[in-house]
C-alpha cells in the first residue's frame, strides 16, 4: 500500500505488525487512548535490600525468560557498557528470543552481533543502529523486523502499550542502595537520564546498574527509588572518554563554515528571529558553527533567546553562561561543558516524553521556532533519510529528527551536497525517515532550497543575498558532478521498518543484494 510519502509498504508487513501506513504528520492529532501501566511488585518490608550482587543474579531474580523485552538507554553513547554486559549474561543463561528496546544503539554494541546470529536476540527496536548491528540487520540476520523509531516515537510506543518492557536496565552514574538514580556525578557522568525516564515509569521491572554507589538519599533523584526494583553495582558501566568528550573545536573547514553562514543568514531573515525565539541544533560541525555565528548576531541586534533545546553542546550552554538565553531544556549532553552546565539553575532536565512524544498533550518540540538538522540524504520532495546509508545498509538513527522537524516552525537541514561521490540531494531517498512536509529548508554548500510549500518563507527571502536554488536544481548540480547514481538493488525480504512518530509506517528497509555488474 502506497503511503503519504509515496512509499510502497508491503501488505504482509502491515499484516504482521498490525500497523497502518503513514498518512501525514498530524494524522493522529486528537487520537484518544488509555495509557498502559506497569505490573508492579511492591516493597514494603523495611528489612529487604534492593542490592543484588551481579547482573547474572538480577536476571534470575527478575525471572528472565525467552521472549522478554529488555529496555536500555543511550546516554553513555559510544562509551556504553550496559547493553553488552547484560546481553552477555542473558546469553550465558541460554535465553532466546529477546527483544531489545533501546533509545539507541551504536558501534559500542558490536559485540552483541553473535547473539543476533544465534537467536538470543530476535527483535530490535531502536532509534537507529550503527556499525556491525546495522550490517547484521541489513544482511537479514535478525529473525524479526527491526523497528526504527524516533525518541518521541519510542515514548509513544511504550506509554501506549504497543511495546511492553519486561525489564529495564538503567545505567546510573550515581545511585543509592534504594535505587535513587542521578545522571550527575560518578565516573560515568552523563548529566541527564532523559531517555530512561519512560523505562522507569513503564517497565514491569527496573534494574539500576551503577559504578558509583552513594549513601541514601541520592537526591534530587532523576529516577526515583519508587520505580526501581533492584540495584547492581558494577566495576564500570561506561567509558568516560566516550560518554562526554571535550567540546569539539569550532570547525575551520570552510565548506562547513560557509553552510553555517548561509544557515544563520537564513535564520535571521525569517520573521521568527526576534526577541524570545526558541532554537535547537545538532552536534555536526556546521550546526555548531551556525550556533556560534547566531550568538554573535543576537548580541549585535540585542535579541535574546527564550529557550534552547536539545542534545546540548558547549556553544548552546555558552548562550546560557553569557546570559543570551533564558533557559535550556536538556535531553542529552554531548560534551563535558554541557554536563557541567546541568548544574545551572536555568538548565532544566526534561524527559524524552516531554521533549518529543506526539501522544502527549503537547511536547516541547511543538514550541520550537527553529531546528537545525543534518541528513544523509534529502530528496526532491524534501523527504529526509538519516538511518539508511546510500548503499542500503542501516547506519544511523532517527533521534529527534522527525520529532523536532514536525514541531518546529522552521526546520532547516544542513547537508554538504556531495559526500564523497554520493549526492546528498537526490531524486528519491533510500529510505524516508522524516517526511518532506516537515522540512522547510535545505542548506548546502552549493545553494539553499526552500520547500515550495513554504511560500511565506520564500516571500520573506526576496532580496536576501543568499544562493537560492530549487531542490531540483541542487539535485541536478550534484548529478552533473558525480553522475546519476544507480538504484541500490534490494532483496524482497523486509528486514526493518521505519516508524513514523505516531506509529504508522513511513518506510521499510530491505535486505541488501550483493552487487553484480549489469553486463555480466
Amino acid at each position: 500500500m502506497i503511503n503519504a510519502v509515496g512509499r510502497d509498504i508491503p501488505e504482509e508487513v502491515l499484516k504482521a505488525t498490525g500497523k497502518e501506513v503513514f498518512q501525514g504528520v498530524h494524522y493522529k492529532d486528537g487520537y484518544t487512548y488509555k495509557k498502559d501501566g506497569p505490573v508492579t511488585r511492591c516493597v514494603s518490608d523495611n528489612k529487604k535490600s534492593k542490592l543484588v550482587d551481579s547482573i547474572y543474579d538480577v536476571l534470575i531474580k527478575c525471572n528472565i525468560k525467552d521472549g522478554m523485552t529488555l529496555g536500555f538507554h543511550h546516554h553513555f553513547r559510544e562509551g556504553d557498557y550496559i547493553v553488552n554486559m547484560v546481553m552477555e549474561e542473558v546469553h550465558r543463561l541460554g535465553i532466546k528470543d529477546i527483544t531489545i528496546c533501546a533509545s539507541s544503539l551504536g558501534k559500542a554494541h558490536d559485540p552483541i552481533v553473535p547473539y543476533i546470529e544465534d537467536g538470543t536476540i530476535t527483535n530490535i527496536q531502536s532509534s537507529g543502529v550503527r556499525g556491525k548491528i546495522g550490517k547484521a540487520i541489513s544482511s537479514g540476520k535478525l529473525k524479526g523486523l527491526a523497528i526504527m523509531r524516533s525518541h518521541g516515537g519510542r515514548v509513544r510506543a511504550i506509554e501506549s502499550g504497543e511495546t511492553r518492557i519486561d525489564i529495564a536496565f538503567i545505567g546510573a552514574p550515581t545511585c543509592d542502595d534504594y535505587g535513587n538514580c542521578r545522571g550527575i556525578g560518578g565516573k560515568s557522568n552523563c548529566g541527564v537520564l532523559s531517555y530512561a525516564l519512560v523505562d522507569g515509569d513503564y517497565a514491569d521491572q527496573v534494574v539500576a546498574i551503577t559504578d558509583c554507589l552513594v549513601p541514601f538519599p541520592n537526591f534530587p533523584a532523576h529516577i526515583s527509588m519508587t520505580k526501581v526494583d533492584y540495584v547492581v553495582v558494577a566495576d564500570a558501566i561506561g567509558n568516560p572518554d566516550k560518554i562526554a568528550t571535550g567540546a569539539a573545536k569550532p570547525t575551520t573547514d570552510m565548506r562547513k563554515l560557509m553552510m553555517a553562514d548561509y544557515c544563520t543568514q537564513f535564520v535571521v531573515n525569517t520573521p521568527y528571529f526576534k526577541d524570545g525565539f526558541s532554537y535547537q541544533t545538532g552536534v555536526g560541525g556546521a550546526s555548531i558553527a551556525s550556533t556560534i555565528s547566531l550568538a554573535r548576531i543576537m548580541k549585535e541586534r540585542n535579541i535574546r533567546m527564550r529557550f534552547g533545546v536539545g542534545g546540548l553542546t558547549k556553544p548552546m550552554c555558552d548562550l546560557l553562561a553569557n546570559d543570551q538565553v533564558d533557559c535550556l531544556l536538556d535531553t542529552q549532553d554531548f560534551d563535558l561543558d554541557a554536563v557541567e552546565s546541568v548544574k545551572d539553575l536555568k538548565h532544566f532536565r526534561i524527559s524524552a516524553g516531554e521533549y518529543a512524544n506526539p501522544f502527549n498533550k503537547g511536547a516541547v518540540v511543538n514550541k520550537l521556532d527553529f531546528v537545525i538538522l543534518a541528513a544523509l540524504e534529502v530528496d526532491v520532495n524534501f523527504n529526509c533519510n538519516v538511518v539508511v546509508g546510500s548503499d542500503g545498509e542501516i547506519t544511523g538513527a532517527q533521534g529527534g529528527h522527525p520529532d523536532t522537524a514536525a514541531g518546529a516552525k522552521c526546520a532547516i537541514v544542513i547537508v554538504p551536497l556531495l559526500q564523497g561521490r554520493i549526492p546528498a540531494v537526490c531524486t528519491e531517498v533510500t529510505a524516508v525517515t522524516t517526511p518532506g512536509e516537515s522540512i522547510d529548508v535545505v542548506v548546502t554548500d552549493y545553494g539553499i532550497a526552500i520547500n515550495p510549500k513554504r511560500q511565506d518563507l520564500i516571500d520573506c527571502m526576496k532580496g536576501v543575498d543568499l544562493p537560492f536554488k530549487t531542490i531540483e536544481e541542487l539535485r541536478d548540480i550534484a548529478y552533473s558532478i558525480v553522475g546519476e547514481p544507480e538504484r541500490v538493488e534490494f532483496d524482497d525480504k523486509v528486514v526493518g521498518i521505519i516508524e513514523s512518530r505516531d506509529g504508522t509506517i513511513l518506510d521499510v528497509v530491505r535486505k541488501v543484494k550483493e552487487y553484480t555488474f549489469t553486463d555480466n
Partner: protein
Amino acid sequence: MEIVQPAMAGTLESSDCQVTVEPGDDGIEFNLESVVINQYGNQIKKVVMETLKNMEVSQVKISVIDKGALDCTIKARVEGALFRSAGQFDNLPWGGAVR
C-alpha cells in the same frame, strides 16, 4: 600498449582511487572494490574499460580500490598506472590516447 611490468597509481584518500596493473594473459581481468559500488559500480567499470580501450590495452590484470573518485580521477589513475608500467613519462599523447 602492452603491460610488461606491474605498476600502481593513486591513493586511498577520500575521492581518490588506487589502480594496480599487472601483465595478464586472459584478456582484461577487472577487479573493483569501491565504497560506492552499489551506486556507481557499472559507471566505474565503463570508465576503466573505455580508458583501456583508448590506450589499446587488451591483456591486463587491473584492480581498482575506489574511495569515491569522480570519473576524471579514475581515468587519470588508470592512465597513470599504465604509463608507469610502460615507463613513458614524456611526450605523452594528450588529447590522443589520453582523452
